[in-house]
């Protein structure tokens, strides 16, 4: 049947009038700053646009630097200048103590019932002096990626349980694969001097029973033999099972080597799971994830650094109500479910870990639930605004050990002295 052209035009015009115009007339523009690691920006944009369509508002999505450290620097500048440019900030789990004063208290905007739908530990991490400064969007924990096909090929029954096993397996696979692929390495991780190294090194030290740099009471505990043993172990990987360049790798550098099929093991966050299984990935279906290895010593234990991102509303925002509405939508059950299924972002709502659709898309979420719930937090709650200085001193010390510029013992005793100065009379 032929439809006259004028009819189509009229239809389009009617549609425009019915949908576009009234929405634009009453909506406001809310600006959200999202991360850009992996597909983070696209997921954020899709979610924010779905909210905009539903509420008749508009969103502007800003990309931010890949490096967490650079992102924090940018946010600090914007917030300290009192800028109302950005309404909703995506903040790292270690930032509530640092930036908290610049965000609104969400307790005043949301129903207390909503709070109880999230993991209590994450709500606690977002509460500073009784103020709820952010809502958890996705949580993160360091996990071990391993190539199932290569493990089988070299006769290993399962992934390594201890660091020693990991080193032996990585060395064997690397030696074998090198014959056909000179670029092949056993294990890649994050070794550049930045926040990511703090996360990796905390896992090594904690898995040796060496504590969390600064304990819950605020005492500096990092200068101990177990921590030194952990750093020595990591140092022994460089240039044996890990490329020398790993000392300049961040998350995406490690993933670059891993996803091209050039590594047997990788330490990374869960976001790399969905990317590794994307249709164009050379290692699609050839890998799995598990908990990171523990030390072979009697008090060795598995450890995963707690990561994750929250959404917070700037106190300088001109559209606080709409901004809170966007935060509630993005952290809501349905949006988190979408992100869990298509992006393997770990939900912050316990209910989603029992959702059959989520478990079908990312079976490891059910299997590693305990790892995620018991992840080790970095000492940001104790060290508050000085966390950044603590972390920077820590990763600098660790990096100097990995580079071979200092012994583990020397670096840790100097680190303890530096931390004492940063601490001063109190955190």
């Amino acid at each position, binding site marked *: 049947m032929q439809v006259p052209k004028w009819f189509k035009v009229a239809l389009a015009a009617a549609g425009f009038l019915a949908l576009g115009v009234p929405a634009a007339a009453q909506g406001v523009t809310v600006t959200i700053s999202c991360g850009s690691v992996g597909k983070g920006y696209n997921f954020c944009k899709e979610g924010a646009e779905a909210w905009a369509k539903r509420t008749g508002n508009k969103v502007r999505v800003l990309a931010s630097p890949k*490096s967490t*450290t650079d992102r*924090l*620097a940018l946010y*600090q*500048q914007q*917030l*300290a200048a009192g800028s109302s440019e950005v309404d909703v900030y995506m903040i790292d789990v270690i930032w509530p103590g*640092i*930036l908290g*004063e*610049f965000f609104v208290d969400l307790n005043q905007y949301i129903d207390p019932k909503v709070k109880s739908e999230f993991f209590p530990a994450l709500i606690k991490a977002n509460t500073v002096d009784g103020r709820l400064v952010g809502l958890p969007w996705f949580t993160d924990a360091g996990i071990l990626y391993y190539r199932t096909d290569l493990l089988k090929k070299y006769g290993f029954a399962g992934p390594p349980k201890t660091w020693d096993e990991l080193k032996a397996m990585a060395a064997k696979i690397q030696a074998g694969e090198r014959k056909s692929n000179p*670029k092949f*390495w056993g294990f890649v991780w994050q*070794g*550049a*001097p*930045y926040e990511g190294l703090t996360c990796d090194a905390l896992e090594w030290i904690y898995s040796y029973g060496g504590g969390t740099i600064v304990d819950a009471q605020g005492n500096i505990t990092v200068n101990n033999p177990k921590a030194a043993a952990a750093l020595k172990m990591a140092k022994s990987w460089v240039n044996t099972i890990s*490329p*020398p*360049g*790993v*000392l*300049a790798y961040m998350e995406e*550098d490690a993933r*670059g*080597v891993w996803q091209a099929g*050039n590594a047997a093991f990788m330490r990374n966050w869960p976001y790399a799971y969905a990317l590794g299984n994307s249709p164009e990935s050379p290692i699609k279906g050839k890998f799995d994830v598990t908990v990171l290895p523990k030390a072979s010593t009697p008090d060795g234990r598995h450890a995963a650094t707690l990561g994750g991102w929250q959404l917070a509303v700037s*106190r300088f925002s001109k559209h606080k109500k709409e901004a809170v509405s966007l935060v509630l939508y993005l952290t809501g059950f349905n949006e988190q479910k979408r992100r869990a299924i298509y992006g393997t972002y770990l939900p912050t709502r316990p209910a989603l870990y029992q959702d059959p659709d989520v478990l079908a898309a990312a079976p490891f979420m059910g299997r590693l639930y305990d790892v995620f719930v018991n992840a080790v937090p970095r000492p940001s709650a104790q060290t508050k*605004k000085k966390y*950044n*200085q603590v972390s*920077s001193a820590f990763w*600098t010390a660790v*990096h*100097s050990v990995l*580079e*071979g*510029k200092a012994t583990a013992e020397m670096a840790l005793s100097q680190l303890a002295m530096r931390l004492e100065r940063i601490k001063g009379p109190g955190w």
Partner: protein
Amino acid sequence: MAQRLSLSARRARIAWAFLAPAVLVLLAVAAYPLFRTFQLSLFRANLLDYPLRPEWVGLANYAYMVRDLYWWTSVKNTVIFTVASVGLETVLGLGIALLVNARFPLRGAMRTAMLIPWAIPTVVSAQMWRWMYNDVYGVVNDLLLRAHLIAKPLAWLADPHLVLPAIIAVDVWKTTPFMALLLLAGLQSIPEELYEASRVDGASGAQQFWFITLPLLVPALLVALIFRTLDALRVFDVIYVMSGVNPSTMSMSVYARQQLVDFGDLGYGSALSTGIFFIIALFVVLYLSVLRVEVD
């Protein structure tokens, strides 16, 4: 009598009137920020406090600075970077300037093409070099391996012995054209007759270079050196993009930025900035005293 006095007074007044805009601009864009930075360096203040709560600490920030090993490491790195990069750039720039000063076909095109590295923003070229230096997929290792100059890939940006030289190489690549351009202008100001006369006297090419070109190029060379040295002493972008805040490479500016921006430590960061100012001022005084000797 009265007329003459008022004449000189009037001339002074006119002179001041002409100077005033320049003085005002200098006060606004140089003296005031400098004064504020110095003022802040006497306080303990954190950018992360809302609202700001500055606290007077006197010279405590400076007292710590003197004992701060990272600060002295950054000073050392900056001086190594400056001496190595400016030295190499001067030698290479002089060579290139002599080359493009000769007459040959397509000289104009050559002079333009030579400026390309200088025209690319540093952040962009540094990122480009970061990829080229990558230990697993970088083109630098690939070429060196093919040429059998190295036996296995080098981790340019991770090896503490290689990373500063690698960054200096990028700076030399980028800034040599600028040096060459300044020196080319100096070369072109040397009168052709001097060379003609020396040829009549039977001077060789080398003698011409040592006794005519080089002495007459000294003023241009010194100007170029001052420019480049002061620029290199406040280097930030190429180092920050290529290796972040890493004690093996960080310059004074990279370290000061970390304190100011990452830690929000306005007081100590300002003290470091004041320190950078004085170190650069020291170099200026050194150069100026050398220049004065030359002028006399």
